[in-house]
Each structure stands twice: as structure tokens, then as C-alpha cells.
């Protein structure tokens, strides 16, 4: 793997992601609906955190706040020690292009369907202002020989793998994945789990929302969320 892809934001001791007292609520015609209430969460650099909770618990919303694609109604959000709660859209975009990547549940939503595998990698690197990582990254991520393939020719697992490879190629420090294995068959899901492990070994900070027991068992830290609140006593839990 090239030096470029391993270059990460230098460590200064602060957590990669820090939420304090975060509330998120949405307005309807009749009332205001709380989704997250009083969330305090710190994710250290290089940490692998799994967010677990039933459907409607607020996992995806929490992930979206961490991925800087949603703003909290109140509270604060820090990325590598920098308070981005009131940051303007340009700054948030810059962070999302270079430091924080969100991987969607549906594999197809993470790729440009009119570009080949290698072109997707190159496009993501271009958006981050980086050079094309080349076929070496594809080899490393277990996608060797697929460079010229259309993305539709990949399996679901391979597509998610490619999405994660794109994040690596963009030099992302933090990857957030929303149910990355939920739409995949067993073999594909195992591929994704394997890839996430690879990313963790590379030092990428990972936050994954999932029901998948393989992921629950994999992450050294599981954070449980129910009804928009983090489950008390969850912070130091090591195993499911």
C-alpha cells in the first residue's frame, strides 16, 4: 500500500469523534419528534466501535451526526479536537471529502454505476484531492483483476469492499458504515467483515451500526442505543 494511503491525520491525543449532550429532533406538522437525547460519545483514534440497537432506536441518526451529514438540534460535535457544531457547509464538506466517510447500507449507493471499479477508486481519490491509488490498492483489498469491470459485475460484498477501498484510497481517517452487511448473503457479508478488520488494522477509526453478530463479536467496543439514548453502562463493554 502506498505511503499516501497510510497517511492519516496526526495524533494529538484528542478523540477522533466526540459528541457531548447531542439532541436530534425533527418537526412534523403537529409536533416535534425526538430521535436522539443527551448523547455523549467519544470514539478514540483507531478505535472500532459497533453501534447496536433495535430498529428505530436512532442508530442511523447517530451515525449521520458522526458522519457530519446531519446537524444536531443541540449539543456539540468535535472531529479530531475541532468543534464543528457551528461549522459552515464548506468546512463540513471538506471534512467529509478527506477525513470522514459514510458507507451506506445499499452497496450500489456507494459507487458510481457508470464508472468501472478502477475508475470509482480514482474518482473518490480525486474528490479528496489525492492521486489515483492504482491497482495495488485493489489487490490489497482483494479486488485484484477487477479494475476494468463495471461495478454491477461485482457481488454485493465486493461492492462494499470497493466502497471501503475508496475510503482508504481517499485517505479517510474515519469510516462510518450503516448496516454494511444487512443486504448481503453470507459469503459477501464475510468479505465485508474481513475488509473492516483490514481497515481497523490500518488504523482507520471505524464506527459501524449493525445487528450482525459477526460484527458485534468483532468490535472491541459495543455501544447500545435504545429510544435515542445510549444504554447506561455501555462504554467499557468489551464483548456482546
Amino acid at each position, binding site marked *: 500500500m502506498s505511503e499516501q494511503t497510510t497517511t492519516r491525520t496526526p495524533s494529538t491525543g484528542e478523540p477522533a469523534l466526540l459528541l457531548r449532550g447531542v439532541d436530534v429532533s425533527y*418537526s412534523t406538522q403537529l409536533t416535534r419528534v425526538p430521535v436522539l437525547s443527551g448523547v455523549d460519545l467519544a470514539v478514540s483514534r483507531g478505535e472500532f466501535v459497533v453501534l447496536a440497537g433495535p430498529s428505530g432506536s436512532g442508530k442511523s441518526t447517530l451515525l449521520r451526526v458522526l458522519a457530519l451529514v446531519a446537524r444536531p438540534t443541540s449539543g456539540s460535535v468535535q472531529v479530531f479536537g475541532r468543534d464543528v457544531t457551528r461549522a459552515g457547509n464548506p468546512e463540513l*464538506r471538506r471534512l467529509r471529502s478527506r477525513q470522514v466517510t459514510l458507507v451506506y447500507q445499499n452497496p450500489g*449507493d456507494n459507487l458510481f454505476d457508470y464508472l468501472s471499479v478502477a475508475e470509482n477508486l480514482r474518482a473518490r481519490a480525486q474528490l479528496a484531492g489525492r492521486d489515483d491509488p492504482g491497482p495495488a490498492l485493489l489487490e490489497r483489498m482483494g479486488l485484484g483483476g477487477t479494475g476494468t469491470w463495471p461495478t454491477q459485475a461485482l457481488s454485493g460484498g465486493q461492492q462494499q469492499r470497493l466502497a471501503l477501498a475508496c475510503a482508504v484510497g481517499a485517505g479517510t481517517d474515519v469510516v462510518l458504515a450503516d448496516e454494511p452487511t444487512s443486504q448481503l448473503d453470507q459469503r459477501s457479508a464475510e468479505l465485508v467483515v474481513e475488509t473492516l478488520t483490514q481497515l481497523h488494522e490500518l488504523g482507520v477509526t471505524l464506527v459501524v451500526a449493525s445487528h450482525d453478530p459477526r460484527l458485534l463479536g468483532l468490535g472491541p467496543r459495543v455501544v447500545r442505543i435504545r429510544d435515542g439514548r445510549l444504554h447506561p453502562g455501555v462504554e467499557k463493554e468489551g464483548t456482546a
Partner: protein
Amino acid sequence: MKLPWKRAPLVAWRQPSSLLVALFAGLVLAFVASAAVLHVSSVRTGAVDHNVSRFCPHLRGPAVELVPARFDGSVAAASMAAESAAEHGFDGVVTGLYTGVLMLEFGESAGRAKLAYRDGLTEQVTVSRGGGTDGLWIPESLAELTGADLGDRPRHPGLGELPPVTAVYQDLERTGDGYWCSEEKLVVPGPMDSEWQSAAPVFVPDRDVLASFQPPPAVVDELEVQWEDTSHATFTTTLRFPVDAPTTPEEAAALHDRSRAVVDDLSAELAPEAFVSRGVYLDRSLQLADESSRTVTLAVLPLTVVSLLVGLAGMAAVAVQWLQRRTGEARLLWTHGVSPLAIGTRALLELGVPVLVGSAAGLGLATLARGLYAPSLVLRDGVLVDAGLAVGVLAAASLGVLVATVAVRAHQLFQAVPRERSRAVSRLRLVPWELATGALAVWSGLRLAEGALTVESGEVLPRVDPVALAFPLLVVVTIAGLTARGLGWTLVRSHRLSSWRRPAFQFGVRRLAASGGTAVGVTALALLAVGVLAVGGGVVGAQRDAFDAKSGVLVGAESAVDVGNTTVNAGQAVPASIADRSTLVGRSTTSIADPPREVTVLVVEPDTFHRGGWLGDRRVASAVDEAMSALREAEAARGSGDTAVPAVRVSGAPRGEQLRAGSGLVLSTVGEVAGFPGVTSPTYVVARDTVPSGFRVNTWTVLSGLPAAEVIDGIQAAGGWTIQSVERTTALDGLPFLTMQWTFGFITVLGTVLAVLAITSLLLAIEVRRRQNALSGALSLRMGVRLRTLVSSYLVELGTIGGLAALVGAAVGWGAAQLAASQLDPAPRLVPAPAAPVPVLFLSVLLVATLAVVGAATWLAVRAVRTARVGELIRE
């Protein structure tokens, strides 16, 4: 350039429907813009064409007439004119020489005539007998009066014996657009002229023979005390410059400049007193063309701007549709740090080329199709460049709208912080903006009632109030808005409707309510389109009918041919060959004593008037029936000692039972009508057989439904002779009516464009919701709803939109046109006032089109249901 942007133009081909929609949107916008430019430009050409076509062919260039002068002076002037003509690019000059009216003696008889010469005259008269060019050519009327024939030599006190008669020719009639047109006053006796003002010419084919008529100067001096006796010694000279009719305003302007140069040359050579008249008729034509163009531009500009704005809104809809289809990619780009504006440029790269291609196609279509809407097919220099520039600006605006809409929508979708709408804004949404257009419509209507067209005395084109002209369109826009608002309000509350005994109706209404925004938008657009079409068609029809009716009233028939007393007395005025479509009327101007004023007495034959008189307008025909019935009844009730002649008064003639007119005529009014064919001033219509024998009719006229030429041929074949004639189609200047037709004709084009947009929007809306409709329809069928019910529900849904738009649009449009048409009267002194005709054809086409569109849309929707694969749709 980053890959997603670089690949964008190729990606576009993966969704041909998006390409087509973008291309179509560009085409429509460009068509409207370029059609407006081409139309307004061609109004000038059309106006010049119209005016020049009414000119005599020899009066398109300089028009010069010199005061009576000696022969050598006239010849010298002609020579100067020829030189100037050559210098300024004219092919030559046609010189005419005319003496005053002379009394020529043929033995015991005598008759009045002019001696005349004109270049090329021998090719331009119809010779009845003889044909030698070394003598005199006399008219039939003179030959009949005096008994002169070939070989006879007339005499004149001042000239002595003249050369022999070598030909007899048919009297020249009102000359239409021919060789003699410019000389009409000099060669066709006016029926109202006195004996010494005009007479038929005796032609002298050889100009040099005229030279011999000129007595020595001393004799002229002695004879100057009596103008009748000098008239043989001097010649009125006409100098005409034949030239092809200009086909464009630029050619007309160039011709005008050359003509002005010739007139200036002659003015420099000759003293001002030498001229009877000198000028360039094109002056006025160019002025009228400019006025016409200005009027049409002001009138069509507001709706053109509205149409362009609707088109740009359509472009915004294309952008929204693109974002809907590409939400996944847009979201991915945004997630990876791409700004909404950059996402907008992504859309531009994908759809920009189709928009530009469509724009070029729109310009091409507007150019090729101008025969359908433009007053003239001739393109002036540079107009395509102008149209291209307009299209270019609009294309740039379209692309700007595309980018901006995608950027704003992407911002709203992905990154805007939801804010509660302020109460003030919420309240503002409740205020109907239609109040504004309604207020404008009221203001415009008040100005219309005061007079949208102001006809100044002596002016050809009326002054137009553009605010008043906008009245019918403002009414349509207001009603479209109110109808859409009412529909929206109804749909919001339609959830209370429970009509499950009629499931088709219930489904249809619920689906309408579910897509309320689209339904309201399409209904408003369709209603606007139908209303604009009805307004345009109504006013154009009203103007066309008004021109026909007013010219019919002015002339009295399709053609009117004046005949002499001799012809009438000999029973030759209405021979059998034309009798079934002709009638005879007599006209006299007389004075009545109490109240004292000048009136016209129109003598008609009640039993035959309907054969020839103009009855082309329902109101005029009704007036004629009423008048004839009144005269017949009065005649039947008249006692044998009763001397008062029953008369129907027209056009403000005084009422009375013993009105004493001239020549012993006593009139008794027995009825009144607002108008009558051939009547344009206070007139009494009387029956011929009630008029006392001593009453002198000044002019007899044959009114006919046949062309003038056919009537003249018939009368001459029966041995009679005619004086002058006029055709209905050329009697009244049509330019003011044409200006209104060109204005509202273009509005009809815009209405057609709006209709195409409305139909496309409807079909597009169905296509965009295809998946939802397919899923819900397929599930309904599986749950037991019959296909027939489903089809009926779509007919209810789409029929509501189509039916509402068609019914309300047609009713409002035609009503507004009817209100406006009566005020848009370019010739208010002539009856009848314009009225929008009943739009039978329009309503038929509208019905068929509405049924076709609703049918096609229903078919599309049901087809999606029938071909749906429910499993895949659910999985998606």
C-alpha cells in the same frame, strides 16, 4: 476535470427519456423566443406588402404631376425626369400628357373629352373598332353620344380640324391595379365631377401629333382670359416611374430614398409652382409599417414573456426530475464533500447539450413554420441573427435555471437546516395572488371600455392601448389561478369524501389528492392554454368578420358598378346574365328643410335587393329584412292621394312625416335600422316605385354578388356602358384589421405552445409516477378491484383535469374575447361592431383533443399497471 463530470455527457445517453425531455424543453423555449422575433419582424414586411399592394404600380416610386404647361415645357420636364430616373436606378419614366376638358364637334353633334397621350397607351386599351396609330382613338361613350365613327374628323374652335378617328376603344373603368391606375382621376370621369372637371380621353397615340395642337404663344396669351379655351393649349403632365414592388421593408426604404432623390432633382430643376404634386407614397407606408410593428410588439410582449417564464419553469421541472432520478449519485457526491453548486454543474454537463440542440431545433422549427403564423414569409436581413441572439440568451438562462434549481434542491435535500415557516409567510401563502391579476384585469377592462383603439382623423392605424389589449388574457390568467386554487382547496378536503359505492370515483379523487400539486399545476397550465387559444381565435375571427362586414356595408355588395342614366333607362343596367345576383340602387344627395341638413336618398328595389346587396353579416341581413318589410307594408297601406314617400331612416337621419327634400320629394319615415348596405351617412332608403318621376337620381349603381369584371362584361354585352366600379375586398384598408389579427394570431401560437407544454407535463407526470401507480394498481387488482374499475378511476382522475381545463378555459376565453372584440374596432364609424364568432370548429377540435389526451394518458397509466412485476416493485 473529475471523472463524474467528465463522463456526464455520455451518462446522459443511458436515460434517453431525460435527454428527450431536456431537448423538448429547450426546443419549446427557443421556438417561442425566435417565433416572437420572426413574427414581429415580419409584421413590418407584411404591412409594407399590404400597403404596396394597394398602390398603383406606377406610384411605388416618385409620384410627380405638373401643372398645365405648353407642350415643349412638358416634354422638357419629361426629359429631365428620364435623366434623373436613369441616375437613380429606375428603368425609365412613363410620361402622360392631358389637356383640359374640350368640346369636340362631330358634325352636328358635340361631346366633351380630353386630348391625351401616355407612353405605351396603345397596348393598354381595348379597341372595339379600327386601330391605326396615326389618328385619334375615341371612347365608346363619345362615339355613342355623337354618332362619330372611324374616319370622322372632329373640330375644335381653337385647334381647327383634328386628325381623323382611327380607332374606337372601350371606355376605361375604375382601373384596379393596372396601367391606368395612377391616371385614374385623369382618364375616368368621376360621377360626382362637374361637366368641365373630367371627361373620357381621346387618345393621341403619336405624341408628336400633340405638338401640332399647340397654338403660337401669342394666341395663348389672347385666350388666357377664358380657361376653357386655353385648355387645349396646355398639358397636365404626369411623370411615373415603374418599378417592381419591394418585398421587404429594407427594399422599400431603399426605393423610398431613390424616389426622394428623383423628386429632389426635379424640385431643383423646376420652380415650385410647376408642380401639382410631388412626393413618395412609400413615406406613409414605411411609417404605417413601423406603427404596425410597434403595436403588435407591445401587444404580444406580455404573453410572450409569460410563456417564456412558463418555459423556464418547465426547465426547472426538468432539473427537479433529473435530481429525482439521480438522487443516489447526488447524495453520494454530497457525502464525499461535493457542493450543491457542483452537483448543479454535473446536471449541466449531462443535460446541457440536449438543451442546446433543442434550442437550435426550436430556432429551425420557428423559421420553417413561419408560414403558419407570420404575416410574411420574407425574412429581412439580419432577422435570423436577432432570433439566434434571443435564443442564445434564453439558452444561457435555461442552463442557469438548470444549475440553480439542482443546486438549490440539493441544498434543501441534503444540507439545509429545516426551519419552521414563519406565521407571516404562512399567512402570505393564503393570500390569493389572483387578486393582483384580477385587479389588473379590472383596470385593463376599464381602459378597454374607454377605448382600446383610438382612431384619429386622417390616420390609418388606430392608436392602441396595450394595457387594454391585455384584458382578455388577464381574465384568463385570473380565472386559471382561481380554478387551480379552488381545485387545490377541494383536493385537500377530499379526504372527507367517502364514496366507496363508486370505487372508481373514490380512487380517482384520492389519487388526484395524493398528487395535488401536480394536478393543480397541470390544470392551471392546461386551462391557461385553452383560454389563450379561445381568446386568440375569438379576436382573430371577430376582426376577419368585421373587415368583411364593414367593407360589405361600405360598398353595399361584393362589387358596385356605376352606370349612366341612359343604360338604366334602356333597361340594360341589370341584364339577365347577372340579374339573379344583382340589384340596382340609385343615390342622390339632397337637403331637407326641417331640420336643415344634407342627407342621402337611397333608392332601392325591394324585390331584388337581396340578390345583390351585402347580406354577409347576420345583423346587416336582419336590418335589410326589417327595412324592406317596413317599405312594403308602408307601400301597401299608402293611399292613392298620399304624396309622402315611405322612407326607412338609417345612420341618424332625422325622423318625420313630411320631410321635404329636393326635387319635390316628400319623405315620411316608417322605420329605422342601425345600418344598411352602402350607407355610411344619414340616409333615407326608399322604394324605387314610390319615388315621383320628377326626382333626379344622381348616380345609379349595380350592386352585385359577382366580381366587378363579370358585372361590367354583362352590362356591356347588353349594350350598356359603365362608369366606375369598386370591389368589396379592396374598398376598405385592411391594415388596421390585419394588425389586430397579427397580434392575436401570434397569441394563438403561444396558446398552442402552452397546450403542448400542458399535454407534455401531464404525460410526464404519469411517467414519473409510473412505479408508484404500477405498484398501487397491481396491488389493487390483486385485492379484487376489477380492471374496468381501475380504468374508470384513471378516467375520473385525468378527465377531471382535462374536463375542467377545457370547459372553464373555453368558456372564459370565449367570453373574454367577446367582451374585448366589440371594443377592438379599427373602423368604429362603420357598422357593425366586431363580434367573436361562435367557435364551433375550435370547440370540436378541443373536444377531440381532450378526449385523445385523456385517453392516451389513461392508456399509459393502465399499461404500467398491467405490465408491473409486483415482486420486483416491492423489493425496490
